[in-house]
């Protein structure tokens, strides 16, 4: 718990007015928010100076008018900092972090496909995880996404349920 609290106070000290809503709900978990225009600088600092050198995952959420992106960063000691930022839904553009974390490549492609976040600077490669002929502009994880009416095998089964 001490380590988490010291990270909390360090965050408050270094980025007062930038990083907000810093919470430590339980040992080794810190949640914090940062506006996207200051994200790169804060991220750089947290990764390089504060030792959060492991990228656990990137989560993208549909928050209505904006898309929230959470970078789950961990220290080898086990403390996780969930750094959240958001971009407007009508222009969801972020910069890639795959330069620093090569594994982020796939996590970011997942955001691109499922949440429709545009990631700048992503190296060329196959899309993931949707098929290549997936219709453009369909982002399944967005809350307003409607499943297109199609003849899926499941539907055929449904009709035969009570034969």
């Amino acid at each position, binding site marked *: 718990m001490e380590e988490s609290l010291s990270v909390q106070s360090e965050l408050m000290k270094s980025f007062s007015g930038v990083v907000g809503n810093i919470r430590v709900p339980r040992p080794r978990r810190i949640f914090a928010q940062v506006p996207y225009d200051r994200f790169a600088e804060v991220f750089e600092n947290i990764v390089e100076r504060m030792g959060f050198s492991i990228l656990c995952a990137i989560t993208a959420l549909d928050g209505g008018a904006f898309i929230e992106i959470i970078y789950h960063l961990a220290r080898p000691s086990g403390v996780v900092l969930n750094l959240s930022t958001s971009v407007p839904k009508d222009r969801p553009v972020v910069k890639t972090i795959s330069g620093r974390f090569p594994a982020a490549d796939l996590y970011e492609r997942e955001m691109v496909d499922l949440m429709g976040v545009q990631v700048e600077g992503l190296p060329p490669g196959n899309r993931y995880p949707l098929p290549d002929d997936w219709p453009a502009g369909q982002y399944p994880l967005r809350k307003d996404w409607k499943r297109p009416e199609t003849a899926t095998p499941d539907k055929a*089964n449904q009709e*035969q*349920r*009570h*034969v």
Partner: protein
Amino acid sequence: MKRPGRMLAEVLRSALRKPATVLYPFVKILMPEHFRGRLHFIPEKCIGCKLCMRDCPANAIQIIKVADKQFRCEVDLARCIYCAQCVDSCPRKALEASREFELAQLQRKDLFMRESPDPSKVSAPASEQPKTESAKSEPAPANKPANG
């Protein structure tokens, strides 16, 4: 020490032993006591609360009212994932998981479990005829609302 053929002795020993393979279906294994196999419905205990329907992850179970305080249970065995959550959810233990696991069928329509209360005890409601045990003789209630 590194050498090729480290497993030689073990392999030759195995050849003399009885094979480990179970010759299913000639030899059947009995599943452990708490195995989560095919469901069984005890109509007398059901109170029709439909908690099982609410918790079923696969949407496989239907509780259908056949008469006053009489309920029929239908499980689509092709959809059932055998998690037995309905067994846990049931407040009256009207459902139980059995050890039966050989559920394969040649036709999809046979993959369907329909357990009704004893027809002799059912007082027929005005809207519906009493149901018989046999699935085939029954008219297919295709996707009717849950309370039939």
